[in-house]
Protein backbone atom coordinates (compact mmCIF):
# COMPACT_ATOMS: atom_id res chain seq x y z
CA UNK A 1 0.00 0.00 0.00
CA UNK A 2 1.39 3.38 -0.97
CA UNK A 3 1.62 5.96 1.71
CA UNK A 4 -0.04 9.22 1.00
CA UNK A 5 2.42 11.86 2.03
CA UNK A 6 0.60 14.86 0.70
CA UNK A 7 -1.78 15.88 3.41
CA UNK A 8 -4.49 18.25 2.47
CA UNK A 9 -4.46 20.58 5.40
CA UNK A 10 -7.66 22.46 5.48
CA UNK A 11 -6.93 25.97 6.63
CA UNK A 12 -7.85 25.26 10.23
CA UNK A 13 -8.28 28.12 12.60
CA UNK A 14 -5.58 28.27 15.28
CA UNK A 15 -6.47 29.22 18.84
CA UNK A 16 -4.39 29.28 22.01
CA UNK A 17 -5.30 26.90 24.81
CA UNK A 18 -3.65 29.14 27.41
CA UNK A 19 -5.65 32.15 26.20
CA UNK A 20 -8.77 30.04 26.64
CA UNK A 21 -7.61 29.22 30.17
CA UNK A 22 -7.00 32.86 31.07
CA UNK A 23 -10.40 33.96 29.73
CA UNK A 24 -12.24 31.10 31.41
CA UNK A 25 -10.58 31.81 34.76
CA UNK A 26 -11.87 35.37 34.69
CA UNK A 27 -15.40 34.14 33.98
CA UNK A 28 -15.15 31.59 36.77
CA UNK A 29 -13.78 34.25 39.08
CA UNK A 30 -16.82 36.45 38.46
CA UNK A 31 -19.19 33.60 39.23
CA UNK A 32 -17.43 32.14 42.25
CA UNK A 33 -15.76 34.23 44.96
CA UNK A 34 -13.88 31.18 46.24
CA UNK A 35 -11.79 30.85 43.07
CA UNK A 36 -8.24 32.01 43.80
CA UNK A 37 -5.30 31.91 41.42
CA UNK A 38 -1.63 31.30 42.14
CA UNK A 39 1.37 31.63 39.88
CA UNK A 40 5.13 31.50 40.20
CA UNK A 41 6.43 34.38 38.11
CA UNK A 42 4.97 33.17 34.81
CA UNK A 43 1.59 34.87 34.94
CA UNK A 44 2.06 36.55 31.56
CA UNK A 45 2.87 33.22 29.91
CA UNK A 46 0.25 31.13 31.71
CA UNK A 47 -2.35 33.91 31.17
CA UNK A 48 -3.28 34.03 34.85
CA UNK A 49 -2.44 37.73 34.55
CA UNK A 50 -5.93 38.32 33.18
CA UNK A 51 -7.40 37.07 36.47
CA UNK A 52 -4.81 39.05 38.44
CA UNK A 53 -5.90 42.28 36.75
CA UNK A 54 -9.57 41.78 37.53
CA UNK A 55 -9.19 40.18 40.96
CA UNK A 56 -5.93 41.43 42.47
CA UNK A 57 -6.98 40.35 45.98
CA UNK A 58 -7.54 36.78 44.90
CA UNK A 59 -4.32 36.42 42.94
CA UNK A 60 -1.05 35.39 44.57
CA UNK A 61 2.30 35.46 42.86
CA UNK A 62 4.93 33.46 44.72
CA UNK A 63 7.92 34.39 42.64
CA UNK A 64 10.12 31.59 41.36
CA UNK A 65 9.05 29.10 44.05
CA UNK A 66 6.79 26.37 42.75
CA UNK A 67 6.95 24.14 45.84
CA UNK A 68 5.61 26.88 48.09
CA UNK A 69 2.99 27.82 45.50
CA UNK A 70 1.59 24.29 45.52
CA UNK A 71 1.75 23.98 49.30
CA UNK A 72 -0.05 27.30 49.75
CA UNK A 73 -2.69 26.24 47.24
CA UNK A 74 -3.26 23.16 49.38
CA UNK A 75 -3.73 25.30 52.50
CA UNK A 76 -6.17 27.60 50.70
CA UNK A 77 -8.12 24.53 49.58
CA UNK A 78 -8.14 23.17 53.13
CA UNK A 79 -10.02 26.35 54.08
CA UNK A 80 -12.60 26.05 51.32
CA UNK A 81 -11.01 28.01 48.48
CA UNK A 82 -10.78 26.63 44.94
CA UNK A 83 -7.20 27.40 43.96
CA UNK A 84 -5.90 27.28 40.41
CA UNK A 85 -2.08 27.13 40.42
CA UNK A 86 -0.16 27.63 37.21
CA UNK A 87 3.34 27.41 35.88
CA UNK A 88 5.12 25.73 33.01
CA UNK A 89 4.35 22.02 32.83
CA UNK A 90 7.78 20.74 33.79
CA UNK A 91 8.24 23.07 36.75
CA UNK A 92 4.71 22.63 38.03
CA UNK A 93 4.74 18.84 37.90
CA UNK A 94 8.45 18.15 38.22
CA UNK A 95 9.82 20.74 40.61
CA UNK A 96 6.82 20.53 42.89
CA UNK A 97 5.97 16.85 42.43
CA UNK A 98 6.40 15.88 46.04
CA UNK A 99 4.31 18.85 47.22
CA UNK A 100 1.61 17.73 44.80
CA UNK A 101 1.87 14.23 46.21
CA UNK A 102 1.97 15.06 49.92
CA UNK A 103 -0.01 18.27 50.22
CA UNK A 104 -2.50 17.95 47.35
CA UNK A 105 -3.17 14.35 46.36
CA UNK A 106 -2.62 12.52 49.64
CA UNK A 107 -5.10 14.74 51.54
CA UNK A 108 -7.30 15.02 48.41
CA UNK A 109 -7.20 18.80 48.36
CA UNK A 110 -9.41 20.63 45.89
CA UNK A 111 -6.47 22.13 43.99
CA UNK A 112 -6.43 22.68 40.22
CA UNK A 113 -3.04 22.54 38.54
CA UNK A 114 -3.17 24.11 35.12
CA UNK A 115 0.18 24.12 33.36
CA UNK A 116 1.11 25.75 30.10
CA UNK A 117 4.11 24.79 27.98
CA UNK A 118 3.49 21.07 27.86
CA UNK A 119 5.24 19.00 25.23
CA UNK A 120 7.73 19.45 22.43
CA UNK A 121 6.00 22.53 20.97
CA UNK A 122 7.65 24.64 23.69
CA UNK A 123 10.22 24.91 20.90
CA UNK A 124 13.16 27.27 21.07
CA UNK A 125 13.64 27.15 24.85
CA UNK A 126 14.93 23.63 24.39
CA UNK A 127 15.15 20.44 26.41
CA UNK A 128 15.26 22.02 29.87
CA UNK A 129 11.82 23.51 29.30
CA UNK A 130 10.24 20.87 27.06
CA UNK A 131 8.04 18.76 29.28
CA UNK A 132 7.69 15.20 28.05
CA UNK A 133 7.08 13.67 31.50
CA UNK A 134 4.30 15.71 33.11
CA UNK A 135 1.40 13.41 32.27
CA UNK A 136 3.31 10.40 33.61
CA UNK A 137 4.19 12.29 36.81
CA UNK A 138 0.59 13.26 37.44
CA UNK A 139 -1.02 10.05 36.26
CA UNK A 140 0.77 7.94 38.85
CA UNK A 141 -0.69 9.91 41.76
CA UNK A 142 -3.79 8.52 43.51
CA UNK A 143 -6.77 10.94 43.59
CA UNK A 144 -5.45 12.93 40.61
CA UNK A 145 -7.49 13.63 37.48
CA UNK A 146 -5.41 14.28 34.34
CA UNK A 147 -6.77 16.22 31.37
CA UNK A 148 -5.05 17.16 28.10
CA UNK A 149 -7.50 19.18 25.99
CA UNK A 150 -7.43 18.99 22.20
CA UNK A 151 -8.14 22.63 21.45
CA UNK A 152 -9.00 25.99 22.93
CA UNK A 153 -12.73 25.31 23.10
CA UNK A 154 -12.27 22.04 24.89
CA UNK A 155 -9.82 23.78 27.23
CA UNK A 156 -12.50 26.24 28.30
CA UNK A 157 -14.94 23.43 29.03
CA UNK A 158 -12.27 21.39 30.85
CA UNK A 159 -11.31 24.31 33.08
CA UNK A 160 -14.98 24.82 33.96
CA UNK A 161 -15.36 21.10 34.67
CA UNK A 162 -12.25 21.16 36.86
CA UNK A 163 -13.70 24.02 38.90
CA UNK A 164 -16.85 21.98 39.55
CA UNK A 165 -14.99 18.73 40.27
CA UNK A 166 -14.16 18.09 43.93
CA UNK A 167 -10.52 16.98 44.13
CA UNK A 168 -7.14 17.48 42.50
CA UNK A 169 -7.05 18.06 38.74
CA UNK A 170 -4.11 18.54 36.39
CA UNK A 171 -4.75 20.21 33.02
CA UNK A 172 -1.93 20.35 30.49
CA UNK A 173 -1.91 23.26 28.05
CA UNK A 174 0.55 24.48 25.47
CA UNK A 175 2.57 27.43 24.37
CA UNK A 176 1.60 26.95 20.72
CA UNK A 177 -1.83 27.66 19.32
CA UNK A 178 -3.71 24.50 18.41
CA UNK A 179 -5.81 23.87 15.29
CA UNK A 180 -9.44 24.09 16.29
CA UNK A 181 -11.20 20.72 16.44
CA UNK A 182 -14.46 21.74 18.09
CA UNK A 183 -16.74 24.73 18.39
CA UNK A 184 -17.70 27.06 21.16
CA UNK A 185 -20.70 24.86 21.96
CA UNK A 186 -18.59 21.73 22.50
CA UNK A 187 -19.20 19.65 25.58
CA UNK A 188 -16.72 18.05 27.95
CA UNK A 189 -17.18 15.54 30.70
CA UNK A 190 -14.34 14.30 32.90
CA UNK A 191 -13.71 10.63 32.17
CA UNK A 192 -15.48 10.57 28.80
CA UNK A 193 -13.52 9.96 25.60
CA UNK A 194 -15.78 11.05 22.78
CA UNK A 195 -15.65 9.34 19.39
CA UNK A 196 -14.93 12.01 16.82
CA UNK A 197 -15.11 9.76 13.77
CA UNK A 198 -16.53 6.32 13.10
CA UNK A 199 -14.41 3.57 11.60
CA UNK A 200 -13.85 -0.16 12.01
CA UNK A 201 -10.43 -0.80 10.46
CA UNK A 202 -8.45 0.63 13.34
CA UNK A 203 -8.78 3.12 16.17
CA UNK A 204 -6.61 6.15 16.69
CA UNK A 205 -6.77 7.35 20.28
CA UNK A 206 -5.08 10.65 21.01
CA UNK A 207 -4.93 13.68 23.25
CA UNK A 208 -3.94 17.31 22.94
CA UNK A 209 -2.37 18.54 19.74
CA UNK A 210 -2.33 15.02 18.31
CA UNK A 211 -6.13 14.94 18.09
CA UNK A 212 -6.27 17.33 15.15
CA UNK A 213 -3.41 15.44 13.52
CA UNK A 214 -5.24 12.16 14.05
CA UNK A 215 -8.31 13.60 12.36
CA UNK A 216 -6.10 14.64 9.42
CA UNK A 217 -4.55 11.17 9.30
CA UNK A 218 -8.03 9.63 9.21
CA UNK A 219 -8.81 11.69 6.11
CA UNK A 220 -5.67 10.43 4.40
CA UNK A 221 -6.43 6.83 5.37
CA UNK A 222 -10.03 7.14 4.24
CA UNK A 223 -8.89 8.07 0.76
CA UNK A 224 -7.02 4.76 0.76
CA UNK A 225 -10.14 2.94 1.84
CA UNK A 226 -9.09 2.58 5.46
CA UNK A 227 -11.63 3.80 7.97
CA UNK A 228 -10.14 4.89 11.28
CA UNK A 229 -12.17 5.43 14.40
CA UNK A 230 -10.94 8.59 16.13
CA UNK A 231 -11.21 8.97 19.87
CA UNK A 232 -10.38 12.13 21.76
CA UNK A 233 -9.00 10.83 25.04
CA UNK A 234 -8.63 14.22 26.71
CA UNK A 235 -9.18 12.71 30.13
CA UNK A 236 -6.12 10.52 30.54
CA UNK A 237 -7.13 9.68 34.09
CA UNK A 238 -9.64 8.31 34.81
CA UNK A 239 -9.61 6.54 31.45
CA UNK A 240 -12.88 5.96 29.64
CA UNK A 241 -12.32 2.22 29.73
CA UNK A 242 -15.64 1.39 28.14
CA UNK A 243 -15.04 3.47 25.03
CA UNK A 244 -11.43 2.31 24.66
CA UNK A 245 -12.27 -1.36 25.10
CA UNK A 246 -15.11 -0.96 22.61
CA UNK A 247 -12.66 0.59 20.15
CA UNK A 248 -10.22 -2.29 20.57
CA UNK A 249 -13.00 -4.85 20.20
CA UNK A 250 -14.59 -3.08 17.27
CA UNK A 251 -11.43 -2.43 15.27
CA UNK A 252 -8.79 -4.91 16.43
CA UNK A 253 -5.95 -2.40 16.15
CA UNK A 254 -5.10 0.72 18.11
CA UNK A 255 -2.74 3.62 17.46
CA UNK A 256 -2.15 6.01 20.37
CA UNK A 257 -0.75 9.46 19.61
CA UNK A 258 0.42 12.02 22.16
CA UNK A 259 2.88 14.88 22.51
CA UNK A 260 4.57 13.21 25.50
CA UNK A 261 7.04 10.46 26.21
CA UNK A 262 5.79 7.06 25.12
CA UNK A 263 6.68 6.03 28.67
CA UNK A 264 4.02 6.75 31.25
CA UNK A 265 1.54 8.84 29.29
CA UNK A 266 -1.62 8.08 27.33
CA UNK A 267 0.07 5.35 25.30
CA UNK A 268 1.12 3.56 28.46
CA UNK A 269 -2.30 3.97 30.02
CA UNK A 270 -4.02 2.44 26.99
CA UNK A 271 -1.43 -0.33 26.71
CA UNK A 272 -1.94 -1.23 30.37
CA UNK A 273 -5.69 -1.40 29.93
CA UNK A 274 -5.71 -3.32 26.66
CA UNK A 275 -3.01 -5.78 27.66
CA UNK A 276 -5.15 -6.84 30.60
CA UNK A 277 -8.61 -6.73 29.08
CA UNK A 278 -8.55 -6.67 25.28
CA UNK A 279 -5.12 -7.32 23.79
CA UNK A 280 -4.87 -6.10 20.21
CA UNK A 281 -1.92 -4.92 18.10
CA UNK A 282 -0.98 -1.49 19.44
CA UNK A 283 1.32 1.27 18.26
CA UNK A 284 2.39 4.24 20.37
CA UNK A 285 3.30 7.54 18.77
CA UNK A 286 5.07 9.91 21.10
CA UNK A 287 8.51 11.02 22.13
CA UNK A 288 10.83 8.02 22.22
CA UNK A 289 12.52 8.23 25.63
CA UNK A 290 14.67 11.24 24.84
CA UNK A 291 14.79 14.89 25.83
CA UNK A 292 13.69 17.73 23.62
CA UNK A 293 15.96 20.15 21.78
CA UNK A 294 15.69 23.74 20.56
CA UNK A 295 13.91 24.33 17.31
CA UNK A 296 10.73 25.71 15.82
CA UNK A 297 7.71 23.77 17.06
CA UNK A 298 6.83 22.50 13.58
CA UNK A 299 10.43 21.34 13.02
CA UNK A 300 10.45 19.53 16.33
CA UNK A 301 7.14 17.82 15.67
CA UNK A 302 8.64 16.58 12.40
CA UNK A 303 11.94 15.51 14.00
CA UNK A 304 10.24 13.69 16.88
CA UNK A 305 7.78 11.94 14.60
CA UNK A 306 4.58 13.62 15.77
CA UNK A 307 3.17 14.15 12.29
CA UNK A 308 0.14 13.13 10.26
CA UNK A 309 2.48 11.04 8.11
CA UNK A 310 3.77 9.22 11.17
CA UNK A 311 0.24 8.35 12.23
CA UNK A 312 -0.61 7.13 8.70
CA UNK A 313 2.56 5.05 8.61
CA UNK A 314 1.83 3.56 12.02
CA UNK A 315 -1.68 2.71 10.86
CA UNK A 316 -0.33 0.89 7.81
CA UNK A 317 2.16 -1.11 9.86
CA UNK A 318 -0.46 -1.92 12.42
CA UNK A 319 -2.94 -3.16 9.83
CA UNK A 320 -0.27 -5.56 8.51
CA UNK A 321 0.16 -6.89 12.05
CA UNK A 322 -3.57 -7.07 12.63
CA UNK A 323 -4.13 -9.02 9.42
CA UNK A 324 -1.29 -11.44 10.08
CA UNK A 325 -2.19 -11.98 13.71
CA UNK A 326 -3.27 -15.62 14.08
CA UNK A 327 -5.45 -14.83 17.08
CA UNK A 328 -7.44 -12.19 15.33
CA UNK A 329 -7.48 -14.11 12.02
CA UNK A 330 -8.96 -17.11 13.77
CA UNK A 331 -11.69 -14.95 15.25
CA UNK A 332 -12.80 -13.80 11.81
Amino acid sequence: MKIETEVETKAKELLSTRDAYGDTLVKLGRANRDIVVLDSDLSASTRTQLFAKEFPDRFFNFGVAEANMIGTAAGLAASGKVPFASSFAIFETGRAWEQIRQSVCYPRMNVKLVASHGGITVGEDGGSHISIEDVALMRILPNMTVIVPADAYETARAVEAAACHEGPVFIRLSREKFPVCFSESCTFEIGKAPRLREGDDLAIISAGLMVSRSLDAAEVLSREGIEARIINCSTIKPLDEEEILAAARGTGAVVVAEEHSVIGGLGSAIAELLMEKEPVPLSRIGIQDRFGISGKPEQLLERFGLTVEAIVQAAHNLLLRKNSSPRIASQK
Partner: protein
Amino acid sequence: MTIADAQIERLRDQARQIRILVLKMLTKAGSGHTGGSLSAVEVITALYFQKMRIRPQDPTWEDRDRFVLSKGHGCPALYAAMALAGFFPIEELMTLRQMDSRLQGHPDMRMLPGIDFSTGSLGQGLSAANGMALAARLDNKDLRVYVLMGDGEIQEGQIWEAAMAASHYKIDNLCGILDFNKLQIDGQVLEVMSIAPVADKWKSFGWEVMEVDGHDFSQILPALNRAEEVKGKPSLIIAHTIKGKGVSFMENQSKYHGVAPTKDELKKALLELGA
Protein backbone atom coordinates in the same frame (compact mmCIF):
# COMPACT_ATOMS: atom_id res chain seq x y z
CA MET B 1 -2.17 39.61 80.73
CA THR B 2 -0.93 37.86 83.80
CA ILE B 3 -1.25 34.15 83.91
CA ALA B 4 -2.50 32.79 87.14
CA ASP B 5 -0.42 30.19 88.91
CA ALA B 6 -3.41 27.86 89.10
CA GLN B 7 -3.78 28.03 85.34
CA ILE B 8 -0.14 27.14 84.84
CA GLU B 9 -0.44 24.36 87.37
CA ARG B 10 -3.38 22.95 85.38
CA LEU B 11 -1.41 23.11 82.13
CA ARG B 12 1.57 21.40 83.76
CA ASP B 13 -0.64 18.57 84.85
CA GLN B 14 -2.11 18.25 81.36
CA ALA B 15 1.40 18.20 79.89
CA ARG B 16 2.36 15.43 82.33
CA GLN B 17 -0.70 13.41 81.32
CA ILE B 18 0.12 13.92 77.66
CA ARG B 19 3.68 12.70 78.24
CA ILE B 20 2.39 9.58 79.97
CA LEU B 21 -0.02 8.87 77.11
CA VAL B 22 2.67 9.52 74.49
CA LEU B 23 5.00 7.00 76.10
CA LYS B 24 2.27 4.41 76.52
CA MET B 25 1.00 4.69 72.97
CA LEU B 26 4.48 4.59 71.49
CA THR B 27 5.37 1.52 73.53
CA LYS B 28 2.17 -0.17 72.43
CA ALA B 29 2.82 0.76 68.80
CA GLY B 30 6.39 -0.50 69.02
CA SER B 31 7.61 2.27 66.75
CA GLY B 32 7.37 6.02 66.36
CA HIS B 33 9.12 9.23 67.27
CA THR B 34 9.59 9.60 71.00
CA GLY B 35 12.13 12.40 71.39
CA GLY B 36 10.44 14.99 69.20
CA SER B 37 7.00 14.17 70.59
CA LEU B 38 8.19 14.84 74.14
CA SER B 39 9.96 18.08 73.25
CA ALA B 40 6.76 19.53 71.77
CA VAL B 41 4.41 18.67 74.63
CA GLU B 42 4.25 22.07 76.37
CA VAL B 43 3.78 23.99 73.12
CA ILE B 44 0.96 21.70 72.02
CA THR B 45 -0.59 21.79 75.50
CA ALA B 46 -0.51 25.58 75.57
CA LEU B 47 -2.24 25.70 72.20
CA TYR B 48 -4.91 23.05 72.77
CA PHE B 49 -5.71 23.81 76.40
CA GLN B 50 -5.26 27.55 76.54
CA LYS B 51 -4.73 29.48 73.39
CA MET B 52 -6.63 28.05 70.46
CA ARG B 53 -10.33 28.58 69.78
CA ILE B 54 -11.50 25.07 69.04
CA ARG B 55 -14.61 22.94 69.47
CA PRO B 56 -13.54 19.34 69.95
CA GLN B 57 -17.14 18.20 69.40
CA ASP B 58 -17.31 20.16 66.14
CA PRO B 59 -13.86 19.63 64.64
CA THR B 60 -14.68 21.18 61.26
CA TRP B 61 -16.09 24.39 62.77
CA GLU B 62 -15.23 27.03 60.16
CA ASP B 63 -14.10 29.73 62.57
CA ARG B 64 -11.74 27.56 64.59
CA ASP B 65 -8.08 28.41 64.94
CA ARG B 66 -5.93 26.08 62.86
CA PHE B 67 -2.93 24.02 63.89
CA VAL B 68 -0.53 22.49 61.41
CA LEU B 69 1.97 20.03 62.84
CA SER B 70 4.56 20.55 60.13
CA LYS B 71 6.89 18.19 61.99
CA GLY B 72 4.31 15.48 61.47
CA HIS B 73 6.36 12.79 63.21
CA GLY B 74 5.61 14.49 66.53
CA CYS B 75 1.96 13.43 66.18
CA PRO B 76 1.78 11.21 69.30
CA ALA B 77 1.86 14.41 71.36
CA LEU B 78 -0.85 15.95 69.17
CA TYR B 79 -3.04 12.86 69.30
CA ALA B 80 -2.75 12.68 73.07
CA ALA B 81 -3.66 16.37 73.42
CA MET B 82 -6.62 15.95 71.08
CA ALA B 83 -7.89 12.92 72.97
CA LEU B 84 -7.60 14.73 76.31
CA ALA B 85 -9.36 17.74 74.80
CA GLY B 86 -12.23 15.48 73.75
CA PHE B 87 -11.80 15.06 70.00
CA PHE B 88 -11.93 11.28 70.33
CA PRO B 89 -11.83 8.65 73.11
CA ILE B 90 -8.56 8.32 75.01
CA GLU B 91 -8.60 4.51 74.52
CA GLU B 92 -8.24 5.08 70.77
CA LEU B 93 -4.70 6.38 71.42
CA MET B 94 -3.59 2.79 71.89
CA THR B 95 -4.38 2.05 68.22
CA LEU B 96 -1.55 4.35 67.08
CA ARG B 97 0.12 3.08 63.89
CA GLN B 98 -2.04 -0.04 63.71
CA MET B 99 -3.77 -1.10 60.54
CA ASP B 100 -7.09 0.71 60.03
CA SER B 101 -6.43 3.08 62.92
CA ARG B 102 -7.36 6.73 62.41
CA LEU B 103 -4.12 7.50 64.21
CA GLN B 104 -1.77 7.08 61.28
CA GLY B 105 2.01 7.11 61.69
CA HIS B 106 1.89 10.70 60.48
CA PRO B 107 -1.24 12.88 60.76
CA ASP B 108 -3.93 12.26 58.15
CA MET B 109 -6.67 14.89 58.04
CA ARG B 110 -8.93 12.64 55.97
CA MET B 111 -8.89 9.90 58.56
CA LEU B 112 -8.95 11.87 61.79
CA PRO B 113 -11.33 14.84 62.11
CA GLY B 114 -9.59 17.62 63.98
CA ILE B 115 -6.31 17.25 62.14
CA ASP B 116 -6.15 20.48 60.16
CA PHE B 117 -3.59 19.30 57.63
CA SER B 118 -1.91 16.05 56.62
CA THR B 119 1.81 16.17 57.18
CA GLY B 120 4.77 13.85 57.41
CA SER B 121 7.00 14.95 54.57
CA LEU B 122 9.03 17.68 56.23
CA GLY B 123 9.04 21.28 55.09
CA GLN B 124 5.51 21.50 53.73
CA GLY B 125 3.41 22.66 56.67
CA LEU B 126 4.34 26.33 56.64
CA SER B 127 3.12 26.72 53.04
CA ALA B 128 -0.19 25.09 53.95
CA ALA B 129 -0.49 27.30 57.02
CA ASN B 130 0.12 30.37 54.84
CA GLY B 131 -2.70 29.22 52.58
CA MET B 132 -5.09 28.82 55.52
CA ALA B 133 -4.15 32.23 56.87
CA LEU B 134 -4.66 33.86 53.46
CA ALA B 135 -8.03 32.14 53.11
CA ALA B 136 -9.08 33.50 56.52
CA ARG B 137 -8.05 36.98 55.44
CA LEU B 138 -10.07 36.70 52.21
CA ASP B 139 -13.09 35.60 54.23
CA ASN B 140 -12.63 38.31 56.88
CA LYS B 141 -12.34 35.72 59.61
CA ASP B 142 -10.28 36.65 62.66
CA LEU B 143 -9.05 33.11 63.26
CA ARG B 144 -5.36 32.41 63.77
CA VAL B 145 -3.15 29.73 62.25
CA TYR B 146 -0.40 28.04 64.25
CA VAL B 147 2.29 25.91 62.70
CA LEU B 148 4.87 23.88 64.62
CA MET B 149 8.13 23.19 62.82
CA GLY B 150 11.11 21.08 63.76
CA ASP B 151 14.61 22.50 63.87
CA GLY B 152 15.96 19.88 61.48
CA GLU B 153 12.92 20.47 59.32
CA ILE B 154 13.82 24.06 58.55
CA GLN B 155 16.78 22.78 56.57
CA GLU B 156 14.18 22.18 53.84
CA GLY B 157 14.23 24.89 51.17
CA GLN B 158 10.46 25.10 50.95
CA ILE B 159 10.36 26.50 54.49
CA TRP B 160 12.30 29.52 53.31
CA GLU B 161 10.16 29.95 50.21
CA ALA B 162 7.17 29.99 52.56
CA ALA B 163 8.92 32.25 55.11
CA MET B 164 9.56 34.76 52.32
CA ALA B 165 5.96 34.59 51.13
CA ALA B 166 4.48 34.97 54.64
CA SER B 167 6.28 38.23 55.15
CA HIS B 168 5.71 39.39 51.55
CA TYR B 169 1.97 38.95 52.02
CA LYS B 170 2.12 40.37 55.58
CA ILE B 171 0.42 37.29 56.98
CA ASP B 172 -0.01 38.42 60.58
CA ASN B 173 -2.72 35.92 61.52
CA LEU B 174 0.00 33.28 61.40
CA CYS B 175 2.24 32.20 64.25
CA GLY B 176 5.10 29.82 63.61
CA ILE B 177 6.68 27.92 66.46
CA LEU B 178 10.07 26.29 66.18
CA ASP B 179 10.62 23.22 68.35
CA PHE B 180 14.32 23.96 68.79
CA ASN B 181 15.42 20.75 70.50
CA LYS B 182 18.85 20.89 68.83
CA LEU B 183 18.84 17.28 67.62
CA GLN B 184 17.88 15.49 64.42
CA ILE B 185 18.16 11.82 63.46
CA ASP B 186 21.78 11.98 62.44
CA GLY B 187 22.90 13.98 65.45
CA GLN B 188 23.16 17.61 66.49
CA VAL B 189 21.44 20.02 64.13
CA LEU B 190 24.41 22.36 64.28
CA GLU B 191 26.70 19.55 63.16
CA VAL B 192 24.49 17.88 60.56
CA MET B 193 23.60 21.17 58.85
CA SER B 194 23.80 24.31 60.86
CA ILE B 195 20.73 26.52 60.92
CA ALA B 196 22.56 29.23 62.90
CA PRO B 197 21.96 32.06 63.41
CA VAL B 198 18.40 30.89 63.45
CA ALA B 199 16.70 33.94 64.98
CA ASP B 200 18.57 36.28 62.64
CA LYS B 201 17.57 34.20 59.64
CA TRP B 202 13.87 34.56 60.41
CA LYS B 203 14.24 38.23 61.31
CA SER B 204 15.96 38.89 58.01
CA PHE B 205 13.05 37.19 56.26
CA GLY B 206 10.78 39.79 57.81
CA TRP B 207 9.39 37.89 60.79
CA GLU B 208 8.85 39.06 64.35
CA VAL B 209 10.95 36.63 66.38
CA MET B 210 10.62 35.71 70.04
CA GLU B 211 12.64 33.20 72.04
CA VAL B 212 11.23 31.27 74.98
CA ASP B 213 11.91 28.26 77.14
CA GLY B 214 9.64 25.83 75.32
CA HIS B 215 8.84 23.90 78.48
CA ASP B 216 7.83 26.92 80.57
CA PHE B 217 4.19 27.93 80.24
CA SER B 218 4.89 31.28 81.85
CA GLN B 219 7.04 32.06 78.82
CA ILE B 220 5.10 30.26 76.09
CA LEU B 221 1.71 31.82 76.81
CA PRO B 222 2.86 35.47 76.88
CA ALA B 223 4.72 34.87 73.62
CA LEU B 224 1.59 33.44 71.97
CA ASN B 225 -0.35 36.46 73.21
CA ARG B 226 2.26 38.88 71.98
CA ALA B 227 2.30 37.23 68.55
CA GLU B 228 -1.38 38.05 68.26
CA GLU B 229 -0.62 41.72 68.69
CA VAL B 230 2.06 41.83 66.00
CA LYS B 231 0.53 43.41 62.91
CA GLY B 232 1.79 43.52 59.33
CA LYS B 233 4.13 40.55 59.63
CA PRO B 234 4.19 36.94 60.72
CA SER B 235 5.58 35.88 64.11
CA LEU B 236 7.92 33.07 65.02
CA ILE B 237 8.36 31.76 68.53
CA ILE B 238 11.64 29.92 68.91
CA ALA B 239 10.87 27.41 71.63
CA HIS B 240 14.13 26.19 73.18
CA THR B 241 13.31 22.63 74.10
CA ILE B 242 14.91 19.38 75.16
CA LYS B 243 14.50 16.35 72.97
CA GLY B 244 13.01 13.54 75.07
CA LYS B 245 11.97 16.07 77.77
CA GLY B 246 10.58 14.58 80.94
CA VAL B 247 12.33 11.22 80.86
CA SER B 248 15.87 11.50 82.19
CA PHE B 249 17.44 8.79 80.08
CA MET B 250 15.83 10.07 76.87
CA GLU B 251 16.70 13.72 77.27
CA ASN B 252 19.13 15.07 74.68
CA GLN B 253 19.59 11.63 73.13
CA SER B 254 19.24 11.62 69.36
CA LYS B 255 18.82 7.86 69.41
CA TYR B 256 15.28 8.38 70.73
CA HIS B 257 14.37 10.41 67.64
CA GLY B 258 12.69 7.57 65.83
CA VAL B 259 12.52 4.80 68.41
CA ALA B 260 9.69 3.77 70.73
CA PRO B 261 10.38 2.92 74.38
CA THR B 262 10.71 -0.72 75.35
CA LYS B 263 8.40 -2.05 78.07
CA ASP B 264 11.16 -1.72 80.66
CA GLU B 265 11.94 1.79 79.54
CA LEU B 266 8.25 2.64 79.77
CA LYS B 267 8.13 1.39 83.35
CA LYS B 268 11.10 3.54 84.35
CA ALA B 269 9.75 6.53 82.47
CA LEU B 270 6.31 6.29 84.07
CA LEU B 271 7.91 6.15 87.52
CA GLU B 272 9.77 9.36 86.75
CA LEU B 273 6.53 10.98 85.62
CA GLY B 274 4.75 9.84 88.76
CA ALA B 275 2.23 7.78 86.84
